[in-house]
C-alpha cells in the first residue's frame, strides 16, 4: 500500500509534470505539425499556382495574338482613313494655295485696272498741287496789283490835294523883293512847296457850275418845249386885268404877238447844204438797206447788154465844156481868192413867207 501510495504520491507529483510533459510533447509535435502542415500547404499552393499561372500565361499568349491581329487590322483601317484624309487635306491646301495665288493676281489686276488707279491718283494729286501753286501765285499777283493800284490812286489823290492847296496858296509865292515863307533866305534850297507854288496856276473865282445842257436843236426850239423858252400861247392872260384906257389894241392880240413862237423862214429853218445832206442821207439809207448795189434793171432789159455805140456824126472827141455850166471858177488856181470851193445856196423867196402873219395890218384886206 505505501508503495502504492508512494507511487500515487510520486505519480501525483509527477502528474503535473506528466501533464506538462504530455502537453509539452503534444504541443511540440503540434508546433512542428503546424509547421510541416504549413510547409506542405505552401508547396502545394505554389505548385498549383504555377500550374494555373502557366495556364494563364498560355491564355494570355493566345489573347495577345488575337488582340494583336485585331488591333493591327483595325489600325490599318484607321491608318488608311488617316492617309486618305491627309492626302485630301494636302490636295485641298495645294488647291487653296494656287487659288489664292490666282485670286491675288486677279484682285490686284482688277483693282489696279478698273477700281482704283494708284498712279492716276498720284498724278491727280500732283496736278492739284500744281494748280494750287499756280492759283496761289496768280492770287498773289492779283493782290499785289490791287495794292499797287490803290497806292497809285492814293498818291494821285495826294498830288491832287497838294496841287489844289498850292493853287489856293499861290499868293504866298516869293517875289524878288519879298521872299515868300517857303523861300527863307537862310535856307540853301527853297522848300519843295515853293517850287510847287511856282508851277501852280492861280484859282479863278468859282463860277457857279452851270449844268451841261444837251444842245437843243432848232426844231425843239421851234416847239419851245424847254422850261426856259418863252411860254406858249396857250397861257391865257390873267382874267381880272383892268382894261387899259386908250386906243390900244386888244390885249389878247398884243400878248399873242408878244409871245408868238419863232417862225423862221424856210431859208433859216433848213440848213444851207440841206440838199447835199439829204442826198448823203439817202445814200446812207440805201447802203444800209440794199443787199445788192447794182441797180435793178427791168427784166425786159436783161438782153440789152450791148453797149451803145454812138454814130460817127454824133460822137466827137470834143465834148461839152463844163466851164460855164458846172464850174465857174477861174482856170488858174493861183487866181482864186480862197482855197475853199463855193457853196451853192438855195435862193430864197421871202416874198410870201410873212404874208398874213405880221403884226401890222399894212396891206391886208380889211
Amino acid at each position, binding site marked *: 500500500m505505501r508503495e502504492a501510495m508512494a507511487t500515487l504520491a510520486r505519480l501525483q507529483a509527477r502528474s503535473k509534470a506528466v501533464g506538462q510533459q504530455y502537453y509539452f510533447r503534444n504541443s511540440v509535435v503540434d508546433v512542428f505539425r503546424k509547421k510541416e502542415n504549413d510547409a506542405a500547404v505552401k508547396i502545394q499552393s505554389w505548385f498549383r499556382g504555377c500550374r494555373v499561372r502557366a495556364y494563364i500565361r498560355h491564355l494570355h499568349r493566345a489573347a495577345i495574338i488575337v488582340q494583336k491581329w485585331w488591333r493591327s487590322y483595325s489600325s490599318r483601317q484607321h491608318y488608311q482613313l488617316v492617309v486618305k484624309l491627309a492626302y485630301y487635306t494636302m490636295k485641298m491646301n495645294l488647291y487653296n494655295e494656287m487659288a489664292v495665288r490666282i485670286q491675288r493676281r486677279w484682285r490686284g489686276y482688277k483693282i489696279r485696272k478698273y477700281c482704283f488707279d494708284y498712279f492716276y*491718283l498720284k498724278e*491727280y*494729286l500732283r496736278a*492739284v*498741287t500744281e*494748280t*494750287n*501753286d*499756280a*492759283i*496761289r501765285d496768280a*492770287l498773289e499777283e*492779283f*493782290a499785289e496789283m*490791287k495794292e499797287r493800284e490803290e497806292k497809285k490812286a492814293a498818291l494821285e489823290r495826294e498830288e491832287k490835294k497838294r496841287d489844289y492847296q498850292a493853287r489856293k496858296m499861290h499868293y504866298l509865292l516869293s517875289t524878288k523883293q519879298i521872299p515868300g515863307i517857303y523861300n527863307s533866305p537862310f535856307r540853301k534850297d527853297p522848300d519843295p512847296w515853293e517850287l510847287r507854288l511856282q508851277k501852280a496856276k492861280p484859282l479863278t473865282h468859282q463860277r457857279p457850275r452851270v449844268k451841261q445842257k444837251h444842245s437843243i436843236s432848232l426844231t425843239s426850239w421851234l416847239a419851245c418845249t424847254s422850261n426856259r423858252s418863252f411860254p406858249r400861247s396857250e397861257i391865257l392872260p390873267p382874267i381880272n386885268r383892268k382894261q387899259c384906257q386908250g386906243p390900244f389894241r386888244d390885249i389878247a392880240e398884243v400878248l399873242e404877238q408878244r409871245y408868238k413862237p419863232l417862225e423862221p423862214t424856210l431859208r433859216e429853218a433848213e440848213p444851207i447844204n440841206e440838199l447835199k445832206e439829204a442826198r448823203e442821207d439817202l445814200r446812207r439809207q440805201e447802203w444800209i438797206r440794199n443787199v445788192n448795189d447794182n441797180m435793178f434793171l427791168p427784166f425786159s432789159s436783161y438782153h440789152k447788154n450791148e453797149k451803145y455805140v454812138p454814130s460817127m456824126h454824133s460822137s466827137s472827141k470834143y465834148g461839152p465844156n463844163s466851164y460855164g455850166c458846172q464850174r465857174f471858177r477861174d482856170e488858174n488856181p493861183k487866181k482864186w481868192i480862197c482855197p475853199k470851193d463855193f457853196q451853192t445856196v438855195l435862193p430864197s423867196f421871202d416874198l410870201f413867207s410873212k404874208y398874213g402873219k405880221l403884226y401890222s395890218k399894212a396891206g391886208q384886206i380889211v
Partner: protein
Amino acid sequence: MSQRQVLQGVMSLLRPLLLDVVPTIQQTAALALGRLANYNDDLAEAVVKGDILPQLVYSLAEQNRFYKKAAAFVLRAVGKHSPQLAQAIVDCGALDTLVICLEDFDPGVKEAAAWALGYIARHNAELSQAVVDAGAVPLLVLCIQEPEVALKRIAASALSDISKHSPELAQTVVDAGAIAHLAQMILNPDAKLKRQILSALSQIAKHSVDLAEMVVEAEIFPVVLTCLKDKDEYVKKNASTLIREIAKHTPELSQLIVNAGGAAAVIDCIGSCKGNIRLPGIMMLGYVAAHSENLAMAVIISKGVPQLSLCLSEEPEDHIKAAAAWALGQIGRHTPEHARAVAVTNTLPVLLSLYMSTESSEDLQVKSKKAIKSILQKCTYLPALEPFLYDAPPNILKHVVGQFSKVLPHDSKARRLFVTSGGLKKVQEIKAEPGSLLQEYINSINNCYPEEIVRYYSPGYSETLLQRVDSYQPLAN
C-alpha cells in the same frame, strides 16, 4: 407825357401834312415819318396803327419822284422791324405800287422801291412769296443791269433776301435770268456790291444740287477766287460762304472746286483773316474732305491741316473751334495716311484738352470727341499716340490701346521704341476688367513681348524682387 403819348401826338400831327397842297410839305412830312419809323419799332407800329399807310400807297402812284422816294423810305422803315409790320404793309396793297415804282425812270426811286421790297422779303417765306407774286423779280433783274452802283447793290441784296427762304423762290429768281448778270458783276471793283452779289449767289446755290450746278455753269470759277483776296473782310466771308454752299452738295462739285484750285485759295483766305470771317472757309474744307478720301488727300496736300490746327489753337470762340475740330475729324477719318497727316501736326493733344476741359461748350466737347475717335481708329503713327496713354480718359484709352495692339505685333522697331519710351510700363499699369475689350488688347500687347520683360515692367515688380531677397537663405558654407 410818356413816349407813347408823344408818339400818338406826333403821328396825328404829321398825318394831315401828308395831304397838304404844297408838294414840298408832303415830301418832308413823309421823310419825317420815315425817319421816325426807322428809329424804333414802336414808332413803326404807330405809323401802321395811325392808318397812314393806305394814304401813302395811294399817293405813291401819283406823285413826283421825290415824294415816291420818301414814301418808299417810309415803307422800308416800317417793314424792316418785324414780320407783322411787313405783313401790314403787304395787306394795304403796297407791293403793287412798289413794283410800279421799280419801273420808274429815276434811279433813286428804283433804289428806294427795291430797298423796301428787300426788307419786306427778308422776314419769311410767305412775305417773299408775296413779293414774287407782285412781279418784282424780273424788274429787280433789270435794275441790276442799270449803271448806278447803289441801285445794283440794293437790287442784289433784294434778290438775295428773296431767294434765301426756299428752293422754289430761288428757282423763280434763277428763271428770271439773274445768275448770268450776277456772275458778270463779280468783277466789279465796288466792295459793297461784291458782298451783295456773292451773298445772292450763295443764297441761290445753297438749296439744291441743280441750283448749285447752275451757279457753277455761270463760270464763276476761278473768278470767285480773286474775291477771296479782296481787302474787304465781308467780301472774303461771302465768297467763302458761296464756295462752301456749292461744295457741300456732291463730291463732283467739290472735285470741281478742288480742280480749280479753290482749296488752296480758301486755305490762304483762312490764314489771312480772324474770327467769324474764317468760319465758312473752315466748314468748306470739312465738307470737301467729308465726301471722299481722294478729296481729303487733296485738302491735305494743299496744306490745309496746319492751317486748321492753327485755327483750333488760336481762336477764342467755341463755335469756330468746334468747326475746326469737325473739319479735322473729317479729314483724318479715312485711311491711316490721312490720320497720320493729321497726327503729325500735333493736333491730337489739343483736341484732347478741348474735350477734357470743363470750359468748352457741349457742342465743342461732342465734336472734339468724335474727331478724336474717328482719327484714332485709323491712326498708326505711334509717336502721336503715346502721349494719349498717359492722360486720356478710359473711353479713349481703349481705342489707343487697340491701335497699339494692332501695330505692335508686326513692327519690331516699334516694339523696341514702345518699351524704351515707357509705354509698356504704362500699359501694365492700366487697370482693366478681365474679359473686357481693353483687357484683350492689353493681352495681345503683352504677347508681343517675352515673359520677363512683361514681368519686369508690371507694377510692384521691385517689391516682389525684394521679397525674394528677404526670403532667400544663403547657402551655409
